[in-house]
């Protein structure tokens, strides 16, 4: 009874299982499309990221920065009992804030990028706060209001960028580049991964991952947020201000998604806000990342890097006359199967039970006084 809790590895295992199935199905699809090229194509998916050595690895980290953050936004909300499907809206609004400050605030010098980044964070937080308020005070389902906020965010940003001359590049129908001072510094990463697009954003993302982990797991604030997520009534009974917790959960989730947007558009890689009527898919990829990472901050970090790795490898599929979309299909299958994580968990625990039972029969003495509750609730 005093044993230390065993690490519950079934969750991790089910994610690994999902990945394997996803890759296998991807291979089948490659076979169906072009049997002769399937084997080298599949090999490329797995190793393509290394094609250009350190540069390729840096590129993977660069891609992963955004989806780690949106994944973290979704995963954090999940942990506190909310489904933040609005990460896309918060992402684009946050990105817009960063771009606006990046172009317009000219005399900030070395703190320019920090201010731009924080603006993104604040706008994202505001965007997340609205569904939070609606949920807490009017019991409006956050999924519905967040989807609405996605559209409002997307069209609002499009309209504003387009109609505000100083930040609009009307030749390319997108926002102008931000000033050099607004780009996130490389923080020495360019030395590790020369020629790649990696920048300090990745370190910021890792830092936020650790921060979220600490908040959720170690603080009284995290205790409250999770308690409200698990059981709103019991939290109220315990005297936790559950309305405040819900709003703050969404504010934090929004802030992280806003940071993701800011990190992307301040990366100095020629990314601009394009005027297209499409909801940013970084937010939806975030849902996948959160699911694959089991909503655990550290899990999200690895899931984000993994999906970025596959995407990078998938880019080279074009060499074998496959279209890059195949990689989206594979990622989709992986997510699909990680949604079956529960099923896999069940199978695993059943297998374990069987094993445990065989041992138990020989082990349990007939008069074990420590024998605990029977199958009463079963």
């Amino acid at each position, binding site marked *: *009874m*005093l*044993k*230390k*809790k065993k690490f519950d590895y079934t969750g991790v295992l089910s994610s690994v299982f999902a990945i394997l199935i996803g890759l296998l199905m991807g291979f089948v699809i490659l076979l169906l499309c072009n049997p002769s090229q399937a084997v080298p194509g599949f090999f490329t998916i797995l190793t393509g990221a290394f094609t250009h050595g350190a540069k390729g690895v840096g590129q993977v980290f660069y891609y992963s920065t955004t989806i780690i953050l949106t994944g973290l936004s979704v995963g954090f909300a999940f942990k506190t009992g909310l489904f933040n499907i609005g990460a896309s809206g918060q992402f684009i609004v946050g990105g817009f804030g960063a771009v606006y400050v990046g172009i317009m605030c000219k005399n900030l010098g070395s703190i320019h990028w920090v201010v731009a980044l924080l603006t993104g964070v604040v706008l994202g937080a505001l965007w997340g706060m609205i569904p939070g308020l609606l949920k807490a005070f009017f019991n409006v389902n956050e999924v519905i209001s967040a989807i609405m906020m996605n559209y409002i965010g997307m069209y609002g940003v499009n309209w504003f960028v387009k109609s505000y001359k100083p930040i609009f590049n009307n030749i390319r129908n997108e926002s102008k580049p931000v000033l050099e001072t607004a780009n996130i510094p490389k923080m020495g990463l360019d030395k590790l991964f020369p020629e790649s697009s990696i920048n300090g954003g990745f370190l910021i993302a890792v830092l936020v991952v650790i921060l979220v982990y600490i908040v959720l797991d*170690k*603080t*009284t*604030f995290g*205790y409250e947020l*999770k*308690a409200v997520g*698990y*059981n709103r*009534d*019991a*939290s*109220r*009974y*315990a*005297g*936790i*201000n559950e309305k405040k917790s819900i709003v703050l959960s969404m504010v934090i989730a929004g802030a992280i998604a806003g940071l993701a947007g800011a990190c992307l558009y301040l990366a100095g890689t020629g990314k601009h806000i394009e005027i297209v009527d499409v909801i940013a898919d970084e937010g939806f990829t975030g849902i996948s990342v959160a699911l694959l990472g089991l909503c655990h901050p550290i899990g999200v970090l690895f899931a984000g890097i993994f999906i970025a790795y596959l995407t990078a490898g998938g880019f080279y599929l074009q060499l074998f006359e496959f279209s890059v979309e195949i990689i989206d299909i594979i990622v989709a299958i992986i997510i699909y199967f990680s949604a079956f994580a529960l099923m896999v968990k069940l199978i695993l625990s059943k297998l374990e*039970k069987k094993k*445990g*039972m065989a041992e*138990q*029969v020989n082990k*349990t003495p*007939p008069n074990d006084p420590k*024998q*605990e*509750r*029977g*199958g*009463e*609730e*079963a």
Partner: protein
Amino acid sequence: MDYVIEMLNITKEFPGIIANDDITLRLKQGEIHALLGENGAGKSTLMSVLFGLYQPEKGVIKVKGKEVKIRGPLDANALGIGMVHQHFKLVHNFTVLQNIVLGMETTKGGIIQMADARKKVVELSEKYNLLVDPDAIISDITVGMQQRVEILKMLYRDNDILIFDEPTAVLTPQEIDELMRIMKDLTAEGKSILFITHKLNEIKQVADRCTVLRRGKYIGTVDVADTDKEQMSEMMVGRKVNLTVEKSEAKPGEVVMEVKDLCVKSVREGHTKNVVDHVNFQVRKGEIVCIAGIDGNGQTELVHAITGIGNMSEGQILINGEDVTKKSIRYKNTHGLSHIPEDRHKHGLVLDYNLAYNLVLQQYFEPRFSKGGFLKKKEINEYADLLIEKYDIRSGQGKETITRSMSGGNQQKAIVAREIMRNPDILLAVQPTRGLDVGAIEYIHNQLVAQRDSGSAILLVSLELDEVMNLSDRILVIYEGAIVADLDPKKVTVQELGLYMAGSKRKEADHA
């Protein structure tokens, strides 16, 4: 004598535990056979085996002398075995008749034929003296009536082996007497009844024989007429149990909590009546005041209004002379109020948190358990170990156990431990022993009395008359949201109390 059911040497194991260890249960034709055991003794597992929900590792089941293999509830039903569950399985917006035929409708060309069914139901209800209105909607009839519907459901399916799973938990004393009579009538007509319970009075009252289980083991089968309650409870718990609460005379001190003119308006649309209607009372230091009443007479709303979980429309609440009507839940929690909630899953526990986290649910933020916003896990765990030890909370992995996986009794113990350890000035205990076995009830009752003697005021809300009579120093009867009597437990009989609870007797509460 013929046995209708023989469960011979049943063994059912779950990982880490033998839920049924070589259990033998034999039900005779026409008898009422009680199955007695604490929570976790294996009663439910045994019944699940009988219903084919679990397959036993060892043992055979014989029905009417023939060995059978039961693979699921449908098999059991085909063998004539029926069950009234503790929580009724009725469709609330269907009529009585519709509920009874549900799943066995007679149809003709896809169109439902109710006339035959109605005839059969009416016949059955006359034969067994189970009068119900076949066209009443379930949600409009009383719990006692709903139970009759459940019984009729079994009879309609021509079941002749009837299992009652703790059927009296939800009934008033009068309804319990009625049920006992019905059970006897049923056996007189040749039905055999298996009666699962942990209430010894009822066993004494109706059962012919009694099989006792303890911690998954078969202890014995006794003839009820030759065995007294003390012996049975000793078999069940494994030690001598004191069935009456030992307590000294209450020495009420100053008033700790005062409720003045409290009203709660109904939230249901179209209802203008007060669910809690101008309630006034005081609870003093060193006394246990009990609010007795039939479930659904405003107890829940009253308690929620006091604690702040629910709303109130009028009135005032004072704790230690301070007006806390408008204060937050946390303020009340930290200023002397402790609350053992009625619904342990909804309010009492965060089921997905582990035991240690649940044991500090209202205290995690206090300097003792946190520093600078960080949880002091070491202190929390030590505190959890202390409570687990002191209150004998049993679980799979101690403080690390996710509370969802704990048995109901141990979940309740955890809540009681948590609330008492906070050393409250006023303890609101709402059905603190619901679903617990004699051993645990004895323990919790003693804890409440000890808490009283150490100077706490206790407000007990209970539906169990034994508990009300045994434990309280003063009884307030609540009926339709109003306090209709203020009684001294020494001067009132259970029958009289039942009449007050049913609203047929009324005595304006003296404003003590």
